[in-house]
């Protein structure tokens, strides 16, 4: 097997996890026009959630996703109530800053509890070896879990009453309210789902790499890139864009030093923003 | 004599929708040209094409003999073409006076702050807002905000003023007052090109009228000629209210 092929498969696997993280950001952004800056902190909480649960119940780490998703929903409702509910009708800067404030508080509390030292979740699934290259079991499991969660969300948004209400509010909040949708409840739920997605992506990452309370920040950055590539409010598009970003990383790394990747990614990010403000896969401008 | 504004063959397409199609007309010195048409006819789009907020796909706009097609709005103002908005856009966080100073500062004369303040006070007197000059722009009534829109545009010392539905949402007394302001503007030597739905007002104010329907120019002429035009009546039959008014005018 050639190097670039292996590298792209690695990229694809990790890309699914980037995509899952970005789905949370994208959903919240699209539905309520809030850029959720607690995203990174929530990802980190997902990592530590997995660490705590796995330390207490050393079963298959991927089973522990279920309680983490549930806890993420509750956390999301809490964060919504603290930082978003009061400023939802104010200019975007207000929610940007209020969610950032909550982010600082979460990071502060997390630092007080866990310090900024690295932690590990010591759970390993057997990998698959093809030629000289081995793909770890954890990467494959994490990528599969990400895709399953993404599909579940897609089903929820398109097949259930509540999901349809969320999409209606995303399209036009006033119209949805006129049609009897309680927008506060829908917004709170969408936010909670977004946070839960972020937390579960954090939990998946924690099974792959060591992490600190600050690790969420870099995945938050990646989520921005992915969300902008995908276009706002398109959660499943975010998954696809995440996978593409992973593939891009995989395709590029054989030829340049890995340390150049952020420059390429974020340079691309700025260029896409300026040239295609609605995302490469976004809807055409009206 | 050369017309002040000369628009020819202007066309704009949004996706599959032809918003403005091959429209041409002129506005002369000291003239009031009215622009009417059913909702969605492309009137505001036409304004946006004239002052450069959006760029046309085809056609030209000439102002004082100079081609200003696709010039950005801020340059168009410097040349002496100012406008108001249908949905008022006051600078909320600033005072009424500051709003008008902005108009004077960045208008045709590009005044410094101090002379701009003087001009702004004069203009506020003209539209009877001088007593409110220190108030926040956001605290004005809708009538006040409409007058503020006009004042800001006037402060630019324009040769031609585009007024986009300055009468909409006003009560009869306020309409009467605003009509007086518009007449005064023309009498001071400024040409006016205005969109209006209040038929009686536009019929009595305008020297000539242009009728737009589905992005196309349907008719052009004096109010009387336009009102008799069978095509116009047909177009307005979809809007019986206006059709009745047109017939009354006959």
């Amino acid at each position, binding site marked *: 097997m050639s190097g670039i092929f292996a590298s792209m498969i690695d990229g694809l696997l990790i890309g699914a996890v980037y995509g899952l993280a970005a789905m949370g950001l994208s959903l919240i952004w699209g539905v309520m026009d809030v850029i959720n800056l607690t995203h990174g902190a929530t990802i980190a909480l997902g990592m530590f959630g997995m660490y705590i649960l796995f330390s207490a119940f050393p079963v298959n780490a991927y089973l522990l996703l279920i309680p983490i998703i549930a806890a993420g929903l509750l956390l999301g409702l809490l964060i919504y109530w603290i930082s978003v509910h009061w400023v939802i009708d104010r200019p975007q800067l207000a929610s940007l800053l209020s969610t*950032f404030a909550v982010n600082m508080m979460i*990071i502060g509390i997390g630092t007080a509890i866990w310090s900024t030292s690295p932690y590990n979740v010591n759970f390993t699934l057997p990998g698959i070896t093809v030629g000289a290259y081995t793909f770890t079991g954890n990467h494959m499991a994490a990528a599969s879990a990400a895709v399953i969660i993404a599909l579940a969300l897609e089903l929820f948004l398109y097949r259930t009453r509540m999901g349809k209400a969320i999409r209606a509010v995303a399209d036009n909040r006033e119209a949805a309210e006129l049609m009897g949708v309680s927008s506060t409840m829908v917004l709170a739920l969408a936010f909670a789902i977004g946070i839960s997605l972020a937390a579960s992506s954090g939990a998946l990452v924690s099974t792959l790499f060591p992490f600190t309370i600050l690790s969420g920040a870099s995945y938050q950055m990646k989520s*921005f890139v992915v969300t902008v590539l995908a276009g706002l409010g398109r959660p499943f598009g975010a998954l696809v864009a995440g996978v593409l970003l992973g593939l891009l990383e995989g395709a590029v790394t054989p030829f340049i030093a890995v340390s150049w990747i952020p420059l390429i990614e*974020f340079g691309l990010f*700025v260029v896409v*923003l300026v040239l295609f403000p609605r995302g490469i896969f976004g809807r055409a401008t009206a | 004599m050369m017309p002040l504004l000369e628009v020819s063959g202007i066309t704009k397409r949004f996706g599959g929708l032809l918003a403005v199609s091959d429209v041409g007309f002129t506005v002369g010195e000291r003239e009031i040209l009215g622009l009417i048409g059913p909702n969605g006819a492309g009137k505001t789009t036409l304004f946006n094409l004239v002052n450069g907020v959006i760029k046309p796909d085809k056609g030209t706009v000439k102002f004082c003999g100079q081609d200003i097609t696709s010039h950005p709005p801020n340059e168009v103002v410097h040349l002496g073409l100012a406008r108001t908005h249908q949905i008022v*856009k006051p600078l909320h966080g600033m005072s009424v006076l500051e709003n008008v100073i*902005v108009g004077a*500062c960045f208008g045709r004369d590009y005044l410094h702050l101090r002379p701009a303040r003087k001009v702004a006070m004069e203009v506020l007197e003209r539209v009877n807002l001088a007593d409110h000059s220190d108030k926040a722009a956001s605290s004005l009534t809708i009538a006040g905000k409409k007058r503020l829109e006009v004042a800001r545009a006037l402060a630019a010392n324009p040769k031609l003023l585009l007024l986009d539905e300055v009468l909409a949402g006003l009560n009869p007394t306020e309409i009467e007052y605003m009509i007086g302001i518009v007449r005064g503007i023309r009498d001071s030597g400024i040409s006016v090109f205005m969109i209006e739905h209040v038929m009686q007002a536009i019929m009595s104010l305008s020297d000539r009228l242009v009728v737009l329907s589905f992005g196309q120019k349907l008719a052009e002429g004096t109010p009387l000629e336009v009102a008799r035009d069978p095509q116009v009546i047909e177009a307005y039959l979809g809007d019986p209210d206006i059709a009745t008014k047109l017939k009354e005018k006959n």
Partner: protein
Amino acid sequence: MILRHPVLYIILAFAAIMVWLPLHGNNVSLREDLILVAIAVILASNLNLMIGYTGYVNFGHIVFYGLGGYIGLYLAAEKGWNLVLAALLAGVGVSLFALVLGLGILRLRGAYFALATIGILVAVQSFVANFDPWGRSTGLYVSFDAYEKLGGARHALWVTYFLVIAVMALSMILSLGIKMSKFGLGLFAIREDEGAAVVLGVNTTVYKAIIYSVSAFLPAVAGALMFYKNGMIDPSIAFEFMLSLEGIVMLMLGGKGTVIGAALGGGLYEKLRSYLLTSPKLSNFHLVIAGGLLLVVVLFAPGGLIGWLYKAVPRSRKVLE
């Protein structure tokens, strides 16, 4: 005009006190505290030009400070330039960079612009971390004897302190000057309604690019001075995202859009932070407290301290605006 403005004299008095306090009794320890306060005021004041005056949230403002630090340190330490000259050139260079960048990204509005500034911060940091002449991730170091040119390290630290105070005073005077000018009026119009501003004749493209560039100048000069004083620079401390965000906290705390508010917020926040960081019980909670403070300000007092003052004592607005 500006000479008659009371705020000018408040600024000058503030700068004079900042100079006098540590000089009186040769209090080096106080000087080290105050230089951080001055830097906070510089960052908050210049950020205010974007957020407070023009209404554009710049999350990556720190990029100017860091790049200024790199250029300044490179010229002063590696090329042996005079410090003041190196700092000024850093300011000019970074301003030009901002001007070019601004013409591109200022087409974006609202949150999109804010996100682009984050992207730029990360991209620049990554570039510098891979840039050989600037020492990649390890950064640049000043030779210990470089300070001899300024009369030895002890003396050099005082010289850089006075220069930073001067930059601080200039930042505030610049804010005041812009606020009182026609240029400032145009910026406020952009902040309130960019669409209306352009129709009123404001050349928004040029105005935005200029203010973006101007807001880069003094932070870059300050960065050059500060990193020279610190003796080293590396990508992680030059482009600290957290510091960029804290600048926004300072501004919101003091009151965005006002000259005094930006300075007040910068000064207070830095004092609070250094107290929390060195207090053994609270050091772990400084982020929690700072975050809580920001949340309270955003939710309940969007005008910040100055906004609150204006409400409580309406006459104060007449004096300070």
